[in-house]
């Protein structure tokens, strides 16, 4: 009898599982009526100036009235909308892989002191109300918005800027060196001098440079857009002010181990911590390690639309944790996410499902030089290989020995043009005719050049070897397998030229270490730069970062103590960069920047086999006011350039 009982138990469990199966469709139906109740009860358009969820709080007495939360009328920032004035409500639903993915939401919600304008050539006031600058660009007077408040209601004043400058930035508490933007350069000697920051009154401060710093605002907009911090919060945690023991105690309270790590997290990556006041449109609400990380509207947000309605329109940002990038795609197709960005490799599948998934694909251009290409490390340690890489004829041979039409058809679905790595049209630094340079497929000529270079001997596999009989292998070290299709094609073409190509895929951390150790002879990183004068990292060897200049960068960053001394055109680029930094006018800067780009055109250290591809912003059809045809660049803070506070969800 006992046995029979356990058998019945088994049956019951099976029945339960079955019941769960058949329950499949039922909850879906039940969800529908719920959506209707969410609709805002808004009828008279123009007198509703704040979101219903905030009105409820005001009525309940837990939140001050709108006028008390916003800056004084003249200092409120009016944010232009892209298409139409929106309505309140709805969630921005997006996937993320967890706190390691913080920059996606970070850039989208970032509020810079000065932000780039639509075309990206100038900055415009954002957190700042405005500025004045003297004639020789040494004194910048910056005005803030009177009555503006942090998300906890504490006023935002010049003290927040001064505090950040004095106690955080110049003390380097959050793991970053004082940004380059704050140094001005003596045109005569090249000496650097740190700026001085002074408070004028509660809503005005000055930044004074010893030498002209024409691009100060642009460079701050890139290096250090958050030139402020909530002083009232950081006062309670900085070791300088509360003592090491107290900081350690707070560190432990937050669940952290080391105070330095804690200060980096709170001082630099502050937007994912709900404990820290912010001036962004949305405020984090829970632990970022949760399965769902949620931001809610900032009741003290200081921007309105043209009708005076407080932004943002969308109530929340809901970020669901995913384990694998394909879930982003799958979730978008099934409507789980309503505003997501993809790169061009998902173009076909997105377009195929546009109707079914009820979304639209909005392409933004990128200031990238190519979408498939190789960089040759000019300082690679092997002397034979380095000589070869530094020989411009070798780069020409590699360039013309590959059929770009096939590469762009297979690797980019034909989205990219079959062109050389070059500054795209419309981006600062564009050069006529560069896209066509060495872009024609001509394997015979390529072989001929390689023969001329003395690579005539072959090994038993018919691969070319160096004249001294040593082995010639081109090594590409990749941090991910994403480029497999391109690399396979590249291998085919290089081997047709008699060049042995080895592709090593390592994990991205190892690849990073190898880069610093100068052990990456070739790499497939694509150059992306909106304006070399704003961010020189990819084109000017100032530190170890971009594969083509390898340890030339170390030479600059170590002041000549380590690394390889740049010579020839690379040395020239560095001289031009010094001139850019010491320039007295924008024209001068543009002229020198242009010369830097021209040297790149002449040398083609970076060889491109397919032109740039767009970034695909995929928005549900109910998500409105998403601009099209903007430039997607880190400098402009990617999606943040579209000003998400004015995105809204049509009910």
């Amino acid at each position: 009898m006992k046995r029979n009982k356990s058998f019945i138990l088994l049956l019951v469990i099976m029945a339960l599982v079955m019941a769960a199966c058949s329950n499949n469709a039922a909850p879906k139906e039940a969800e529908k009526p719920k959506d209707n109740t969410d609709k805002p009860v808004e009828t008279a358009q123009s007198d509703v100036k704040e979101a219903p969820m905030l009105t409820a709080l005001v009525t309940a007495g837990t939140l001050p009235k709108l006028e008390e939360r916003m800056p004084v009328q003249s200092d409120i920032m009016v944010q232009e909308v892209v298409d139409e004035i929106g309505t309140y409500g709805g969630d921005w639903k997006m996937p993320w892989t967890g706190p390691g993915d913080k920059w996606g939401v970070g850039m989208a919600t970032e509020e810079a002191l000065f932000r780039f304008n639509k075309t990206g050539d100038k900055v415009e006031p954002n957190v700042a109300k405005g500025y004045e600058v003297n004639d020789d660009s040494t004194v910048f007077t910056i005005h803030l918005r009177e009555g503006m408040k942090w998300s906890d209601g504490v006023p935002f004043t010049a003290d927040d800027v001064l505090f950040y400058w004095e106690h955080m930035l110049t003390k380097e508490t959050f793991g970053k060196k004082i940004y380059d933007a704050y140094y001005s350069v003596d045109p005569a000697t090249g000496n650097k001098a740190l700026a001085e920051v002074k408070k004028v009154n509660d809503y005005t401060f000055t930044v004074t440079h010893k030498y002209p710093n024409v691009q100060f605002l642009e460079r701050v907009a890139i290096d250090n857009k958050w030139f402020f911090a909530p002083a009232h919060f950081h006062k309670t945690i900085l070791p300088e002010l509360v003592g090491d023991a107290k900081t350690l105690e707070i560190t432990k309270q937050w669940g952290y181990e080391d105070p330095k790590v804690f200060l980096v997290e709170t001082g630099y990556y502050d937007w994912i911590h709900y404990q820290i006041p912010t001036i962004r449109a949305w405020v984090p609400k829970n632990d970022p390690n949760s399965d769902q990380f949620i931001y809610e509207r900032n009741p003290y947000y200081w921007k309105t639309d043209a009708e005076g309605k407080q932004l943002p329109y969308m109530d929340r940002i809901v970020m669901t944790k995913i384990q694998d990038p394909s879930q982003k795609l799958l979730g978008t197709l099934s409507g789980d996410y309503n505003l997501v960005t993809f790169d061009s490799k998902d173009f076909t599948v997105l377009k195929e499902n546009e109707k079914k998934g009820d979304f639209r694909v909005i392409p933004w251009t990128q200031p990238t030089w190519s979408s498939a290409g190789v960089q040759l490390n000019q300082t690679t340690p092997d002397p034979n290989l380095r000589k070869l890489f530094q020989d411009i004829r070798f780069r020409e041979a590699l360039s013309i020995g590959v059929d770009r039409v096939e590469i762009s058809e297979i690797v980019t679905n034909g989205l990219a043009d079959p062109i050389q790595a070059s500054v795209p049209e419309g981006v600062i630094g564009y050069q006529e005719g560069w896209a066509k340079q060495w872009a024609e497929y001509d394997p015979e000529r390529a072989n001929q050049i390689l023969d001329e270079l003395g690579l005539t001997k072959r090994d038993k596999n018919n691969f070319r070897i160096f004249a001294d009989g040593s082995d010639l292998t081109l090594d590409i070290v990749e941090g991910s397998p994403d480029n497999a299709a391109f690399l396979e094609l590249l291998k085919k073409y290089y081997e047709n030229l008699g060049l042995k190509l080895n592709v090593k895929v390592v994990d991205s951390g190892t690849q990073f270490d190898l880069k610093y150790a100068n052990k990456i002879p070739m790499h497939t990183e694509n150059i992306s730069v909106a304006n070399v004068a704003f961010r020189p990292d990819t084109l000017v060897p100032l530190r170890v970062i971009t594969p083509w200049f390898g340890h030339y960068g170390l030479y600059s960053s170590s002041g000549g103590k380590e690394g390889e001394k740049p010579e020839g055109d690379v040395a020239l680029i560095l001289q031009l960069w010094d001139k850019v930094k010491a320039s007295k006018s924008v024209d001068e800067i543009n002229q020198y920047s242009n010369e830097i780009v021209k040297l790149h055109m002449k040398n083609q250290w970076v060889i491109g086999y397919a032109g740039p591809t767009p970034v695909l912003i995929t928005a549900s059809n109910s998500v409105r006011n998403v601009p099209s045809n903007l430039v997607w660049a880190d400098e402009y803070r990617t999606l943040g350039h579209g000003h998400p506070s004015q995105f809204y969800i049509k009910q």
Partner: protein
Amino acid sequence: MLQYIIKRILLVIPVVILISFVVFYIIQLPPGDYVSSYSAKMSAAGDVMTQAEMDEMRANLGLDRPVYEQYFVWMKKIILHGDFGFSFNFNKPVIDVVGQYMGLTIVVSLVTMLFQYAVAIPIGIYTAVKQYSAGDYFFSGLSFIGMATPNFLLAIILMYLSYTWFGDPLLGLFSNEYVNAPWSMEKVFDLMKHLIIPVIVIGLSSTADLVRIMRGQMLDELNKPNVVTARAKGLSEWSILWKYPTRAALNPIVSTLGWSLSSIFTGATITAIVLNLPIQGPVMYNALLGQDMYLAGSWLLFMALLTVVGTLISDILLAWLDPKIRTEFRGN
């Protein structure tokens, strides 16, 4: 018997210490460390760290110290304070990270196990009793397919079908609106709905295994003299089946039960990644990938401990179930 158990428990201690050292050493083996994988991730988002910043971070996290020193500090904290260290990825103590995922992991694993046994044992018995019948061929064929299909592939297929038929690939364990909601009947239903695919996918290959084992064991037992005697004495077929062959055939299944202990607490890994399940497997995988060594180390240690304990439990269970083994103990 008691002596045997005590002896086994004492043996566990050196084994676990040895494992902990090997584990820690192996985690350190691959090139790079947490800082390099972290800075690579940050640089992909345009936030580039300089060498000096990386060195400082290494010093802050204690990663610049020699391996044995890191090991001793780690072990000391575990033994003296029960502190398993700090997860760099999560910026939280390891214990908290493990705790966050434990509940759902156990739910998924237990439901999966129930599914396995509930499906496999009856089918195993049926296929053995009705050997070479149409039903036997059907289930045997099915179980071979189940054994041969990789889990994650099956996961992808089921997700595809779910997406094309219902418009929802049923990713994760909850629908979006329930993830942060407090527990309610609706949330439980939502969980059950989302559990179907993971349970089938994770459970299928071992279910297939179990069917085969059960069938083989039953076939061995069905014609043993004790069964024939029972039948001759006129006992009904059902009670014969339950009383003798099934009980004996459960032997190998029980002896492997203990091993599933560690898999209950970790859950599946690749399948969980494909299905976006918030359970321990993917957390562990990412810890290994990102060289989040204290999290990874604690996990491997924990799993090793569970395996050792699980084996012990299996032995005890077997002794309880199988009189032959019990007598062997006594004979000692």
